[in-house]
């Protein structure tokens, strides 16, 4: 479809204020939270209703135009990176909380609703929405769903996929389906919702989402413990988990990370080789008893200092330091490259040691801040983009770290997603048969492959189910795939 006609058709659906086609304005949408990749889309559209989304997608389907959905654009793997000759569907105007149902512990929202709003909405009833990605002040529920976002408390409470109970989705052919039971559990049929959550926007667009909310715990206790090095801190983590305690969170930061955070937000963290933040929550009697035990385990693992948050303010300060880690890197380095790999918890010690060796071998600094309870690492490779070759070296270091994690039985990504950023590593984690099987699912949802093409799978393959005269595939037209 020729550009002007596309603009006019979209304007007929959305009104002129719902369509952005000026190149300068389009530029603000050229990347998401991962800024290494930039593509200016042909068009940005801002639907306000599910019907708008449906009409837009139907038009794209009929015309063979690839499209990408975007929420707040905070993703860290380029999942919402636009497609050059495609339409970017920005869902930030769909921001209504449609229903709060306390008796059934459910909240129904539009995809553009921000994560934190859900908790704010139900806090007065003693409830909260459990998944808490560090971006929760600005990231949207639709984006969280697409990426299956985690957060520091997912060790105990699970990920987005454990909290989304139903979704109305617009499939890439413009049909609308409801997946998951919503308020009722166990909808008969395939677990399409479970397959959809975390599919990184490649299977369709959620336009209405039913979330489970969780009762606030009776008691919360948080401590911060300092250790000589990550190995001793790791010993404490093993001790806590081994004691049968399921903490709400266990986070670790190494000395470089502590230094950065201290410079940036001054939480008053102790000087140490490693810090653990451990939070327990639940029924009071359980928390009290297990908290004492946790303190004892930290002491047994030679903690040089243990601070206990006396109230919510002190607890907030601990978490402020932790959640500022990424941003704080700016204080000690011009640029950084973050990875999101995961290793089995018992491999943490070996992997951390290897990470520091990799850094030394390449003469690069690597800061570590991670979810120690579930082995989800966030190694930050520090570099200076102004020094020629450093960016490439940083990427090499990050790549070696990822491969090390895979060798130790881990995963490429715990919560950031594959997107465009990590798809080249997919064949290291999955065999051709695995990737082909993923493709079966994708083709069932999106036979023409116009929905967020070029993401997740390393080599986009065609679904190959349209016999007849040769017709250029939209993904090929967009230069994203070659026929083979």
């Amino acid at each position, binding site marked *: 479809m020729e550009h002007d006609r596309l603009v006019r058709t979209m304007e007929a659906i959305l009104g002129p204020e719902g369509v952005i086609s000026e190149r300068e304005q389009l530029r603000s949408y050229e990347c998401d939270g991962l800024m290494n990749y930039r593509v200016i889309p042909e068009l940005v559209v801002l639907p306000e209703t599910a019907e708008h989304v449906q009409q837009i997608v139907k038009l794209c389907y009929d015309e063979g135009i690839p499209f990408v959905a975007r929420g707040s654009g905070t993703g860290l793997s380029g999942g919402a990176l636009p497609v050059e000759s495609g339409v970017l569907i920005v869902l930030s105007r769909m921001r209504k909380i449609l229903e709060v149902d306390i008796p059934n512990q459910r909240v129904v929202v539009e995809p553009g609703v921000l994560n934190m709003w859900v908790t704010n909405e139900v806090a007065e009833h*003693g409830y909260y929405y459990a998944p808490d990605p560090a971006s929760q002040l600005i990231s949207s529920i639709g984006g969280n769903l697409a990426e299956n976002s985690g957060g520091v408390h*997912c060790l105990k409470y699970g990920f987005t996929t454990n909290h989304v109970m139903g979704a109305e989705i617009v499939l890439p052919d413009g049909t609308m389906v409801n997946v998951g039971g919503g308020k009722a559990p166990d*909808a008969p049929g395939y*677990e399409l919702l479970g397959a959809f959550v975390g599919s990184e926007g490649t299977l369709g667009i959620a336009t209405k989402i039913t979330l489970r909310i969780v009762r606030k715990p*009776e008691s919360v206790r948080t401590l911060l413990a300092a250790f000589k090095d990550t190995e001793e801190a790791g010993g404490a983590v093993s001790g806590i988990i081994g004691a049968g305690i399921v903490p709400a969170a266990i986070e670790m930061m190494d000395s470089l990370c502590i230094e950065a955070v201290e410079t940036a937000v001054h939480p008053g963290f102790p000087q140490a080789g490693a810090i653990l933040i451990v939070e327990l929550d639940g029924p009071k*009697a359980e928390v009290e008893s297990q908290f004492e035990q946790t303190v004892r385990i930290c002491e047994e693992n030679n903690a040089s200092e243990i601070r206990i948050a006396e109230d919510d303010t002190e607890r907030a300060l601990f978490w402020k330091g932790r959640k500022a880690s990424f941003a704080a890197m700016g204080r000690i380095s011009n640029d950084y490259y973050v990875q999101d790999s995961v290793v*089995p918890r018992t491999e943490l010690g070996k992997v951390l040691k290897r990470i520091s060796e990799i850094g030394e071998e390449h003469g690069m600094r690597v800061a570590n801040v991670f979810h120690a309870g579930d082995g989800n690492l966030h190694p930050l490779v520090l570099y200076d983009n102004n020094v020629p070759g450093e960016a490439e070296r940083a990427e090499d270091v990050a790549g070696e770290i990822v491969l090390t994690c895979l060798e130790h039985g881990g995963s490429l990504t715990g919560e950031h997603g594959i997107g465009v950023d990590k798809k080249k590593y997919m064949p290291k984690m999955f065999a051709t048969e695995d990737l082909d099987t993923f493709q079966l699912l994708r083709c069932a949802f999106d036979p023409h492959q116009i929905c967020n093409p070029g993401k997740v799978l390393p080599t986009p393959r065609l679904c190959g189910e349209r016999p007849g005269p040769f017709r250029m595939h939209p993904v090929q037209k967009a230069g994203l795939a070659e026929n083979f």
Partner: protein
Amino acid sequence: MDTRTKNVSLEDLQRIVGAEHAREATPEDAVDGVEPAFVAEPGSVEETSELLRLASGEGLTVAPRGGGTKMALGNPPRELDLILSTTRMNEVIEYVPGDQVVRVQAGLRLQELQDLLAGSDQMLGVDPPEEGATIGGVVAANSTGPRRYRYGTIRDLIIGIKIVLSDGTVAKAGGKVVKNVAGYDLSKLFTGSLGTLGVIAECNFRLHPKPETGRTVAVELSSPAAANGAAQAILHSQLVPSAVELHWREDVRLLTVLIEGIEPSVEAQVETASHLLGGFGEVRELTEEEAGTLGPLAPPGAADEVAIKISTPPAELAGVLSSVLGTTERGGVTAQTTAHAGNGVAYVGLSGGEEEARVQIVEELREIWTRRGGSVVVREAPVTFKERVEVWGPLGSRLELSRRVKEKFDPRGTLNPGRFVGGI
């Protein structure tokens, strides 16, 4: 006797799995009255792959089977030639207690796994009532039990899967770390797929610490409204029970709350729970034996019994009970209800009365609860009943997409044809 079915002989199967692991089927192998020709028990993923390649190539239809506890679930098969039994694939592949993760072959019995894990004070957080169920079967049938209130269902605990597709392709998804968003979550797609997308060969799970101790508090109920009130009181409290169950039959009308954890916490929570429940009837603590005999719903005894599952928003508990009591009383049928009261899942066993009455009851309940956002699924019933009532109920807008998924994963319709939703 001609032992060839669609050009496949018993010897062809024995060549793949060994002479002692393939046999002709007996009437006991029938699924809803449809008798297969053969039963084969592959000993490895490779043999499973080879069997399926042969079967799909020759047009044989295949029903995967684990412990065989859920063969009554689903519509009668459109056709069935081969039962593929996974029970020889019963090894624990990897278990590192410190990681709280286990990798197992699908034919392992759940109970055997739980026994092994208990040695490290850990458990897999599912407790379906069927005895002898295998891991693969639990996943394929999405079997749940009372503790789903706390730990979720198997879809919340499975973190990786290895599957064999009907063309013999062996593929995996997920991994052995709890937190993992690389690739599509096929583990969840295969959960509850009733063997229609592929044969589950291996599963990886996250584990939980096994609670030190547990106690059950119960309240005697006088009415459906009291049941809902009691369940809501627990749901909105800050207690963390493992299970909230309703038992409602002729001689028992109880809501039970299972509290597990460390001793001091269990004691404090039992006290709070007793206090909260006190507003709805007489409260007492159940002995372990009594709680055990209440159990989740026992499978129907008599051959003509019908077991259904009603899923609704959890706060509809009173409505569910009233609708069951009303329809069964009018139909002259006896109902036994066990509900995961905190989750909105009720299992109802219907016995006595005419089949016509049972058909009407199920259709009426389905009409009511589908309209109110829930579902009614027939879990077990005689074939004569299934001929009159589609077991899964309406699928709405999901049906077309479900068919497309099936079409991609099993294009020849080799696996369990007809048994799943919409005749998939």
